[in-house]
């Protein structure tokens, strides 16, 4: 019994010594330098958000895409490095430094680093990056995620409100069947494209069956595209879903951010206008600018795939937006927005 206890204490002491070891600190910092370099180079191939997610917002990195090649490697990810660094710093501090006024400087310095690491972790867990796009005179009470999307089913709740049931796109990407008590039907995800583009099924160019004959897909195919890698571009997802009602299938449908989003519609119009002229472009985009929905038990549900919305308990109205440049140049001098909260 005594031997077991002594053995346990010995193991604990060795472990504590390892955790507070300066050699461990050096090794962790070396890995951190390598990880930052790999993540920075990989950003060129994978884009900012993908690189952040694969190298820094993860525990282990398996493989990296660098200089156009896939490099097989294993590295500790940002979460693992940050966690162990934090534990190492705290353990070293506790084991080596007495809490006296003479050591105030080192306590403050280490405390600052600990605060940095913990603060970064809290920010990463709980923060959301969102954008609010509005024009002068417009009011909004929600912001949108630049990278995350949601499939939303909308139905009327009362004269003033709609009920929105939002399914994160991350769930769509996993496939399978999704149900919710607020929906009188299930959704089976047949396909999900993280990034996509629409192809108009012009009568003279179509050469195969459509994805589905319901809704917008009767006139447009949606094809998968490589993930966007530049900051002035973004992924536009598409999902092919089957809506399964209480009496059976309500058909396959395609939901995409290309449909209904005014910015994407405008982009499409400009693209087609360059190819086939403004009139034909208008005809084409009118075929995609359609509201899609199903009706179950007398209740209508429209659906759309859109950037994830974060609703705020207040609204903002843009009163005036100004953008001034330095005289005689295009160099931005001042961006200002006057808003009413």
């Amino acid at each position, binding site marked *: 019994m005594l031997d077991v206890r002594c053995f346990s204490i010995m193991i604990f002491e060795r472990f504590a010594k390892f955790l507070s070891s300066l050699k461990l600190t050096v090794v962790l910092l070396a890995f951190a330098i390598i990880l930052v370099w790999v993540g920075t180079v990989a950003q060129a191939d994978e884009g900012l958000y993908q690189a952040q997610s694969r190298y820094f917002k993860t525990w282990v990195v398996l493989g990296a895409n660098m200089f156009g090649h896939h490099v097989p490697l294993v590295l500790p990810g940002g979460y693992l490095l940050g966690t162990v660094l934090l534990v190492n710093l705290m353990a070293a501090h506790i084991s080596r430094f007495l809490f006296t006024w003479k050591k105030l400087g080192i306590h403050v310095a280490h405390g600052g680093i600990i605060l940095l690491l913990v603060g970064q972790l809290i920010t990463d867990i709980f923060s959301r990056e969102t954008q609010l796009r509005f024009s002068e005179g417009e009011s909004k009470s929600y912001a949108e995620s630049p990278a995350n999307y949601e499939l939303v089913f909308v139905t009327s709740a009362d004269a003033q409100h709609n009920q929105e049931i939002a*399914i994160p796109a991350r769930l769509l990407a996993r496939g399978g069947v999704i149900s919710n008590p607020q929906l009188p039907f299930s959704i089976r995800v047949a396909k999900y494209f993280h990034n996509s583009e629409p192809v108009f099924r012009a009568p*003279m160019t179509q*050469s195969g069956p459509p994805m589905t004959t319901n809704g917008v897909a009767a006139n447009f195919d949606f094809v998968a595209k490589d993930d966007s890698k530049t900051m002035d571009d973004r992924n536009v997802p598409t999902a092919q879903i089957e809506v399964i009602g209480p009496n059976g299938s309500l058909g396959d449908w395609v939901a995409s951010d290309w449909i209904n989003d005014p910015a994407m519609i405008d982009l499409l119009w400009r693209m087609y206008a360059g190819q086939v002229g403004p009139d*034909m472009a208008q005809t084409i985009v009118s075929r995609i600018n359609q509201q899609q929905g*199903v009706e179950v038990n007398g209740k209508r549900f429209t659906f759309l795939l859109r950037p994830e919305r974060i609703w705020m308990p207040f609204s903002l109205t843009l009163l005036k937006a100004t953008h001034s440049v330095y005289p005689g140049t295009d160099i931005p001098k001042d961006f200002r927005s006057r808003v009413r909260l």
Partner: protein
Amino acid sequence: MIFALALAGCDRDKVTVQQVPKDDQTAQAPMVSQPGAATVPANPHAGMDMGMGMGAPVQPKLKYTLPSGWKEKEAGQMRVGSFEAPAKDGQSADVSIIPLAMMPPETELQNLNMWRSAVGLPPAEKVESTPVTIGSAQGKLYEVSGENATGRILVAVLDREGKSWYFKMNGPDAVVREQKPAFLDFVKSVSFDAAPATAMAAPLMSVPAESAVTPANSGGPLPTGWKEVPATQFLLAKYVIQGTGDAKAEVNVSRTGGGMLPNVLRWCGQLGLPPISEEDFSKKAQSVDVAGAKATLVDMTGTDMKTGKPARLVGIIVPGVNDSGFYKIMGDPQIVGQQKDAFTKFVQTAKFGN
């Protein structure tokens, strides 16, 4: 910390339900929907009414001689004939026959560029075609190919009795070239039996509703939710914005003389409002910049005298040389309020009488 990370991640992957104020995004675009749980499948031709008209097809029956080795496929969609033309190496080309309502001459270049786009070629600036015998008549043959093209397309087009018949072959470059003689023989063998004597639905593509009266739209796409509808004889253009239920608003574009105030008084009458004096009008009217000129904007709320429902009207009068352009949006107050900015921008970019 691992637990906190896991919890945070799970929370963001949940289905969320909330009540939100009604906004225009769920009310604007026309609706394409599945009618109920009971089975009526969506019209497979929904949205593809480009020239066919709705209801039973009334085009004449085609006869043709199928080249050796070609296989007939299920037509479907817009096709009245669908075939596979195989090549020696196992690849094949797709051949289709599609009748569409005859389009205006300017769509010829647009079609050509659409085919060029399909094989990855840049738009052409002029149309190039050669004569081709289709049945007993002469049509046009378009050959789309190029150095960096991803395939080759042959299209033989015959205009006949209000319709354009497209005989198209597309596929890998080598296959289409190999099958070209067979394709030409095929289109030469085509004959048309007389169509049954039934009334034909008005071809929708001959004057596409969405692109009729193009000058108003040539500054850009229509605002979201606007749908062009046939205009009456006194209007240059007309659009409808459908809301939920019966709620809607209509946009009318016209050009007329008669002065500004008499027309505004007419609007007052449409809203059941008492006549407005010139002095009051000058106080209430706002100035809007339209293509460098000062246009006048009026915003009035009343009751639609036709329907008896509350209505709001926003009108913009753009002065011209001999007459003025009148742009009016009128209808459900909420829709008009939501559309006011889009309506103003539409007027500012339109080219009617501006």
